[in-house]
């Protein structure tokens, strides 16, 4: 996506790295939208999440509206088992506490990592042996 001047290159890199880590370590596809959420922010975030297409069901969308100071975490039906609403709320709180201090990119990165942490499924050992 074309990057606006919302983030410096280094901040963008932080967010991208967090998204990549979530994908690598937890196989959790995370999409991050930063911009205005017009009207009902939840409905707009759901619309954005649906716009992810075929991957939407197993994707997590983090939508941040810095102007209205709202953050929406949307989980698809399939991924909801791994990232339940409580984990999503925890990640949202992680983000808002950083946003309050004015750290937009850092908050997003730590929120994405918090989501990945909750979605992480440790490999089960010793299941093959009797």
């Amino acid at each position: 996506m074309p990057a606006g001047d919302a983030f410096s290159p280094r901040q963008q890199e932080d967010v991208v790295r967090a998204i990549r880590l979530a994908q690598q370590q937890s196989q959790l596809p995370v999409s991050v939208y930063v911009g205005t959420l017009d009207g009902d922010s939840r409905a707009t975030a759901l619309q954005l999440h649906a716009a992810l297409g075929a991957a939407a069901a197993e994707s997590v969308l983090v939508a941040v509206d810095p102007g209205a100071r709202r953050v929406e975490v949307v989980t698809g039906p399939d991924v909801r088992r791994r990232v339940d609403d409580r984990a999503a709320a925890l990640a949202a709180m992680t983000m808002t506490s950083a946003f309050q201090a004015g750290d937009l990119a850092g908050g997003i990165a730590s929120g994405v990592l918090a989501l990945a942490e909750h979605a992480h499924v440790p490999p089960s050992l010793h299941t093959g042996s009797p």
Partner: protein
Amino acid sequence: MIARPAARTARALSSLLAVAGCLTAPLLLPSAAWAAGVDDGAEPGDGLSVLETLLWFVGAPLALFAVIAVLVSAPSMARGPRYRPALGWWAAPVWFNGPDDADTAVRRAVPTSGGGGASARW
């Protein structure tokens, strides 16, 4: 404690005098030294012209002030506007890991039920 008006005026006057004394003392001291005349062996050069005086005593401090001001504000100017929670949002939307054609995708999208998530504000 309530100070009486007369006492307060006296105190303000004395502090004013003290400040004025501190400010004028350095100006008076050299003139007192000069009043004693030129020391033996001293060879004073030409005096400064008006233009030179202005240059050294007004221009140089102003230039120093400007340089320091630039040094202080340059980093934040180079970094550009920074997000502050109370000052709204100015930048174009950014979508990391989003659809290729975002506008079309959002227009065509039909939200499905069964998902979850959370909302928060700050």
